[in-house]
């Protein structure tokens, strides 16, 4: 009987402290987010950049025959011109199309790795907290231990063990990056699980799995989204650091991180190879950070006006 019992996934009962809220919270948040000009502007910038990265390489290939991997060794590195607005790199490849293609990879790495991190972290944190007692303290000790291992050491070992491919890079970054989410979610669930609607569900005999996945996790989405928006830029930076070590995306495919690393090596002689990828990365990180701040403020009930 319990499974068929229609229980609103996002309970409409809004509690006074605002920790549990219904769809009105999302509507409120959306309204507040829209009023935040900075966040809206950032959202637009991200959308434009994302679209440019997604479609740009294809469009440029069709329209102008630009190929991110086509080399012209004799042409070599040339400063910006009308034909190559961002200049060309060491192999005579057009930098604009490489930056766009690299942005594609970086955005994908950032978002996918952050998604993996959010997914693992949310489930882990919720289960740990809901189970409570010995299981909770054991699971949380695991988090402490992983937290005490140097982050980069873990990623490097994971990348060496798993081998270097784009997909494994997401996995390695995500698999190490979920700790913060797990902690946040656990804290959130701690206070949620004593709430009326959870007690009610339990008294109706709802299974533990259903409670965790249908009642607890949906209600932690706010903080998870906030953590997520702040994890994306940090994952993009992590990929850049891995590129610095030569463990990032494999050539000839560019990522913003590997382009910036190449540029940093050459900035004394070919300044444009650093300035353009670096500029795009900065704009992207700016926008992601502002949007993250905006989302956090919008979801923070105490900011309600």
């Amino acid at each position: 009987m319990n499974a068929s019992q229609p229980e609103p996934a996002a309970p409409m009962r809004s509690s006074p402290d605002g920790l549990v809220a219904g769809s009105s919270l999302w509507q409120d948040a959306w309204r507040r987010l829209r009023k935040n000009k900075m966040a809206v502007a950032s959202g637009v910038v991200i959308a434009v950049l994302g679209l440019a990265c997604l479609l740009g390489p294809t469009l440029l290939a069709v329209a102008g025959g630009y190929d991110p991997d086509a080399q012209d060794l004799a042409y070599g590195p040339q400063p910006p011109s009308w034909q190559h607005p961002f200049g060309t790199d060491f192999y005579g490849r057009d930098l604009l199309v490489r930056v766009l293609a690299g942005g594609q990879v970086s955005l994908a790495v950032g978002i996918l790795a952050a998604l993996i991190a959010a997914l693992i972290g949310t489930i882990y944190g919720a289960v740990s907290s809901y189970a409570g007692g010995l299981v909770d303290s054991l699971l949380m000790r695991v988090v402490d231990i992983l937290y005490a291992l140097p982050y980069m050491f873990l990623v490097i070992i994971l990348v060496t063990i798993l081998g270097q491919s784009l997909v494994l890079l997401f996995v390695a970054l995500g698999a190490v990056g979920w700790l913060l989410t797990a902690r946040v979610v656990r804290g959130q669930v701690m206070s949620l699980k004593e709430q009326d609607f959870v007690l009610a569900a339990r008294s109706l005999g709802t299974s533990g799995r259903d409670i965790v996945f249908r009642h607890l996790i949906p209600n932690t989405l706010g903080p998870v989204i906030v953590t997520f928006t702040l994890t994306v830029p940090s994952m993009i930076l992590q990929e850049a650091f891995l590129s610095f070590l030569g463990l990032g995306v494999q050539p000839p495919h560019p990522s913003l991180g590997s382009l910036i690393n190449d540029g940093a090596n050459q900035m004394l002689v070919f300044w444009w190879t650093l300035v353009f990828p670096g500029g795009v990365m900065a704009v992207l990180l700016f926008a992601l950070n502002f949007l993250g701040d905006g989302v956090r403020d919008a979801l923070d009930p105490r900011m309600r006006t």
Partner: protein
Amino acid sequence: MTGYLVRRVLELVPTALVIIAASFALVRLAPGSPFSSEKEISPEIRRQLEAKYGFDRPLPEQFVRYVRNLLQGDLGLSTKYPQRSVNEIIATGFPVTLSLAAVALVWSLLVGMTAGIIGAVRQNTVWDHSAMMAALVGISVPSFVLGPLLVLLFSLRLQMLPPAGWGDWRHLILPGLTLGTIYAASIARLTRGGMLEVIRSDYIRTARAKGLAERLVITRHMLRGGLLPVVSYLGPAIASMLTGSVVVEKIFNLPGIGPYFVDAAFNRDYFLVMGIVLLYAFFLLLMNLVVDLLYGLLDPRIDHA
């Protein structure tokens, strides 16, 4: 309070053991051998080398032996630097990293907190925006770009400071700034956020209502509240500063311990990797303990009794 402290310290023991086991297993899982090199070495010589380090024994036995030596303070021998023990390598590198961490910490606190306070007190003014913008720049510029830029400006153009190397205090300025800036940026945002949170609280309103001078309100009350998030951030931040920065120490060629996190893992220098990972874990656990204790002092709402 003492009871709490004893309990916390006792809890660290199993954590530490698992950390040792986990990092031991991880390092050994990575493919490759510490003795492989471009030129082939004969099986007989490989056998001799493995026997010297005890790598010819079964893994569990090696682990037990490692832990036993560890308890006596012996971290083992390096395979990459066969004439040095890991103890000696860490002992020679640590003072360098420590000095770098000191400069970076002072710089990041000085700049970060100043910017954060300005941002909070002059909220939504040009001051606030420039401070936060600078913080975002600090967060989004990777140190492998910032470092070379500083060298270019201060060493090659202005010829004020040495470009790299280790000797006197002048060698610490540029690496300190490079390393500190990343942390300064985060501290600025945290300080501002923390202060804004208390700015609306009752006790600040009371303090203002009592006619307390604005400067005193800021320094006595708002700063104290604003410090909380900074303190919890500084725990892990100091731990990672104390164990150095791979990028900064490489760019400035400082003989600290930072590069070992990457190099020792790459060289499969098993004992050195373990030593450096344990050092990091030790600082992290220690700093977390310190942070929790400081929290009790700063925030009267928390009671460890």
